[in-house]
């Protein structure tokens, strides 16, 4: 049985009708992980023994009468979520031996419903990057072309899904880190409304932007995992209050009357022909399913990249000040004084891109520059949000590309960070505004997948998941798997 080619919901059906046990399913994915991960390096840590113990416990719960859809389902966690039983590295030498004293709320919630942890996935160090090349534990390769990047920062999660080394995964998205790797690896991922999923125990990069979410083969899979991940959390001071919407209940609603906005700024210079064609083909397909297309404008889109690369590094420089060589992680040898302990521990523990963003952040927050950069960027951020609010007066969801191109080659952009930053143009505005957006496969450019995204208003995840699910019912892009891992 090719379990790795099935969606999570299909696998859940097999667990529920008891045609397969969690132990069998877990063994199947553990075997694939052990056999194939060396070719893509999607996992930083594999935990087959813990997984087997959790699978046995899940089977016992099912035998005792529990019926949960996620009970006994194997899962890969991004290595940014703190796990009490497993090292949590955030792909940094700084945290190479970090044992968290508690589980992240997301981990706690998914453990509670009986999910099984296969391991912790690779990422850009502290989630800073778009390619997973900034990992202290080696690059992750794209299963569709192992010379190409898988995207980032949740590149490990996207790659293990595409290679069939896990049926479902967690990710986080600060500037596109769920959606862009999902697009590059041909999987589905949703970045929820800011505050939907608890940030407690999710290692902080830029606190006003960070948001956890699910990655899976299908929108339906993501809906079920999001339902288990989301919820108000007293321990996260930025957690949105109140109940979360029903992410699953409206998946099958028809798209008749749906208004899909096409922002002209998302189809301008820099967008590759293949991605443009796939995005427009998606629009045409949605139209066939009953939607109406509407032209909209997001005039401040071009300002999103500078605003983001002021705000995110500023918050990062503050958040990462906790790594002082004393309380967490790496500590340099034989410090000669306190300053030497701090500066050398940090210089040794952090990678190049993390150090770069700490310095940019320190610069934009420094005396004399704060108003011109940080405060100005926060004002621009409001303009970006207002663009979206204006657009949503004439449409229900916005359709656009995730990235200007398909995945590029490993090493192609590592020497030019500004070029890498500019490729985040279509994902970053969503984070600045705090909106939800789902990325889904929409075609291919040669051997490489192309993803598109649907952006919705605050807490409209049920609608986004519904549209993506209906699109996936009518198309087969999401069912394709890379031949090498078939």
């Amino acid at each position, binding site marked *: 049985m090719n379990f790795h080619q099935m969606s999570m919901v299909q696998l859940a059906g097999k667990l529920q009708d008891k045609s397969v046990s969690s132990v069998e399913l877990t063994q199947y994915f553990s075997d694939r992980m052990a056999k194939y991960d060396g070719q893509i390096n999607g996992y930083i840590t594999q935990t087959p023994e813990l997984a087997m113990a959790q699978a046995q416990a899940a089977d016992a719960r099912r035998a005792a009468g529990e019926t949960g859809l996620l009970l006994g389902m194997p899962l890969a966690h991004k290595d940014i979520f703190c796990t009490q039983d497993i090292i949590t590295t955030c792909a940094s030498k700084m945290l190479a031996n970090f044992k968290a004293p508690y589980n992240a709320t997301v981990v706690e919630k998914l453990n509670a419903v009986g999910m099984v942890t296969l391991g912790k996935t690779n990422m850009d160090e502290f989630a800073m990057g778009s390619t997973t090349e900034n990992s202290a534990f080696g690059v992750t390769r794209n299963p569709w072309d192992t010379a190409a990047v898988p995207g980032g920062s949740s590149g490990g999660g996207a790659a293990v899904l595409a290679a069939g080394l896990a049926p479902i995964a967690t990710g986080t998205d600060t500037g596109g880190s769920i959606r862009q790797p999902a697009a590059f690896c041909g999987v589905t991922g949703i970045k929820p409304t800011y505050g939907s999923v608890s940030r407690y125990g999710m290692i902080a990069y830029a606190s006003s932007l960070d948001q956890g979410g699910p990655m899976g083969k299908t929108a339906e899979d993501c809906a079920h995992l999001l339902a288990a991940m989301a919820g108000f959390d*007293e321990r996260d001071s930025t957690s949105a209050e109140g109940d979360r919407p029903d992410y699953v209940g409206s998946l099958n609603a028809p798209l008749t009357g749906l208004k899909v906005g096409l922002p002209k700024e998302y189809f301008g210079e820099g967008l590759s022909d293949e991605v443009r064609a796939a995005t427009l083909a998606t629009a045409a397909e949605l139209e066939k399913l009953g939607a109406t297309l509407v032209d909209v404008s997001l005039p401040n889109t071009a300002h999103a990249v500078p605003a983001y690369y002021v705000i995110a590094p500023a918050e990062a420089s503050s958040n990462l000040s906790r790594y002082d060589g004393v309380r967490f992680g790496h500590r340099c040898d034989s410090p000669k004084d306190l300053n030497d302990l701090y500066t050398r521990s940090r210089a040794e523990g952090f990678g190049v891109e993390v150090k770069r963003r700490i310095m940019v952040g320190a610069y934009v927050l420094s005396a004399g520059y704060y108003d011109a950069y940080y405060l100005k960027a926060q004002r621009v951020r409001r303009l970006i949000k207002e663009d979206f609010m204006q657009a949503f007066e004439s449409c229900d969801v916005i359709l656009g590309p995730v990235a200007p191109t398909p995945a590029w080659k490993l090493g192609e952009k590592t020497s030019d960070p500004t070029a890498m930053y500019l490729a985040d143009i279509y994902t970053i505005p969503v984070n600045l505004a*705090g909106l939800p957006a789902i990325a889904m496969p929409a075609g291919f450019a040669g051997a490489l997948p192309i993803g598109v995204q649907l952006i919705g208003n605050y807490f409209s995840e049920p609608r986004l998941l519904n549209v993506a699910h209906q699109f996936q019912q009518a198309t087969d892009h999401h069912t394709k798997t890379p031949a090498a891992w078939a």
Partner: protein
Amino acid sequence: MSDQIDVHKVARLGALAIGADEVVAVGQKLNAIVGLFDQLAAINTDGVEPMAHPLDQVQRLRDDVVIEKDIHQYVQQIAPRVEAGLYLVPKVIE
């Protein structure tokens, strides 16, 4: 135009040791990044309030009671060096 970044100063602000051989290359990259920010100055934001939180949520307060569990024993087990219930760190002050 933005000023040229003083690499030693931003490294000090970021508490990062930096080798003399790295300064020029690091400075070039930082200046290229900060160059992206120049366009912000041209945007009219008169009367626009800075946005710190997407939902303009204000800081939530909770009752002033202890909610954390005592994890001293567990943290003692995972700390690099401990003695008599305390945490040992390198001597850095003479």
